[in-house]
């Protein structure tokens, strides 16, 4: 992306940040007012119960003194961007990556499950797509199910898969990976089938005039032609795989990973932990997609398809 494309995007991001920063004041008004009163300040409606009748905004207008304090609560309803940034900095850079309190540690737990699952799901997806393209029976029987399965909230299966595998003694990384694999599987199948079928009649005919066999047709035409489709579905698949790994950590009371951090922050009233995990997950997703985009651009450019990317 060039500089010209970045400026509008940065503007939109800063508008979002500004709205967030402003929203902190009314969102935290009640908590701050209670805290300020305990610290001896006089609040305009004295009784906390009376304050509950007010919206956050009116409360702030009546007590403008609490505005700066809304940004410094230790357990805010809505942490301000700088609080989240500080929490993230501390948990990423100042803790050893092997410590349980380090976000890097939790990121790795989730990431390893995501990547393993993504690898399994992608491999199986590509294999099934090849089968579907070359076998008419498979195409007719399996393809409708692969398409339908995309309309189904497969993620609802996550808790059950974890328990099911737990019952037969499989624990740890693999159950989460299976959910990730399952989620990244279907986009890859659908995209790869489309890609392997993308060569048109003229191109297939040309290969026939070269008397190429099915094998050569696959390696020299169909597979290269499917690359743009493959990368498009890989990008969908990797973010689905990450969501799968996170959700896979929720129902089992896992102790490590982004999902576990979100749950811990939620249950022990530590909003910063939840927010840091949320942004950690977002950054991880962004990095994964960015890496795939980079590989995509390099691959397609080497293949002479750079313009279509």
């Amino acid at each position, binding site marked *: 992306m060039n500089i010209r494309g970045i400026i509008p995007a940065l503007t939109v991001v800063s508008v979002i940040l500004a709205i967030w920063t402003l929203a902190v004041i009314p969102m935290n008004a009640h908590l701050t007012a209670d805290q300020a009163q305990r610290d001896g300040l006089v609040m305009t409606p004295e009784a906390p119960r009376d304050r509950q009748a007010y919206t956050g905004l009116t409360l702030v207008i009546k007590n403008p003194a609490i505005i700066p304090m809304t940004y410094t609560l230790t357990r805010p309803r809505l942490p301000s961007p700088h609080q989240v940034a500080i929490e993230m900095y501390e948990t990423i850079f100042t803790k050893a990556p092997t410590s349980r309190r380090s976000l890097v540690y939790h990121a790795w737990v989730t990431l390893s499950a995501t990547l393993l699952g993504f690898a399994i799901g992608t491999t199986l997806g590509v294999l099934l797509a090849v089968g579907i393209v070359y076998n008419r029976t498979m195409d007719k029987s399996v393809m409708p199910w692969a398409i339908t399965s995309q*309309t189904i909230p497969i993620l609802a299966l996550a808790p059950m898969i974890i328990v099911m595998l737990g019952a037969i003694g499989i624990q740890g990384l693999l159950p989460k990976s299976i959910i990730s694999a399952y989620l990244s599987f279907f986009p890859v199948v659908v995209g790869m089938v489309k890609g392997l079928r993308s060569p048109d009649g003229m191109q297939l005919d040309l290969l026939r005039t070269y008397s190429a066999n099915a094998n050569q047709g696959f390696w020299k035409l169909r597979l290269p032609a499917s690359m743009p489709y493959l990368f498009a579905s890989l990008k969908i698949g990797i973010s689905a795989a990450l969501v799968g790994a996170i959700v896979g950590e929720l129902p089992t009371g896992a102790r490590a990973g982004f999902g576990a951090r979100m749950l811990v922050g939620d249950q022990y009233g530590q909003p910063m932990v939840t927010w840091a995990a949320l942004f950690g997950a977002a950054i991880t997703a962004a990095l994964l997609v960015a890496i795939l985009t980079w590989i995509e651009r390099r691959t397609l450019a080497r293949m002479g398809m750079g313009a279509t990317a």
Partner: protein
Amino acid sequence: MMAFLIAFAIWVAGWWTNARLANGPRSDSRTISLIIPIIFGVTIIAMWEVLVTMLSVSPIILPPPSSIAARFASEIPILWADFEQTILKGAMTGYVIGMIAAFAVALLADRSEFLTKGILPVGAFMAALPIVGTAPIFVKWLGSNWESKAAVVAVMVFFPILVNTVAGLKDTSAMQRDLMRTYGAGYWPTLFKLRLPAALPFMFNGLKIATTLALIGAIVAEFFGSPTVGMGFRISTSVGQLALDMVWAEIVVAALAGSAFYGVMALIEKRATFWHPSQR
């Protein structure tokens, strides 16, 4: 051993029928295209039933389809209540709110070239993020009833719909816009008569992606806290009680609801964009 032989026989029978049908003369007809996947599905379910019952697999690992069906039939009131709570209240409300918000922001952004350029990459980026993670935050803010689920769903469906709508509104050629100008049409007539109809295929694309997201958001958000009704609640508590047939029954409901929701959107799309090449 017997179980595997029978399962294998079922597989061979199903596959042989499908192979005959798929390579037969009328394999592209509509009925045959519908029958083949159904036979495939029935084959899988029959193998599942045979293997699980004959090998007496513990029902806490994998219940046989027959007991799932029985559970489904006997628990219809509970399943309906869960469906109402999660799908009708949580997912639908959120979907409608997210959709309206996305359309509104898209129309606003569309008025300025600068905003469009900014919103497209940011929106596409946000659409790839694990927004489900906001669920604990919304549950904390809005309580554990369906309102918090609707909020999660609204945020989840917002970005795909926004990005597609903004992209769709750009999808008119200079020639078409010039034509409207020669008719003396201003912004609003151009919007309603040319650009919105041209954007519809894109918008429906976003709306169809969002149907699955809406269901996922509503179900997963219930894992973070819910009243004692709802599909996500039922799934997580039934898993805790090892009542896996109930979990599967809920998953059947989720699958049916997801397909129906998607089907309805696809049907509306067909009606609204009958002129588009992809529908003819």
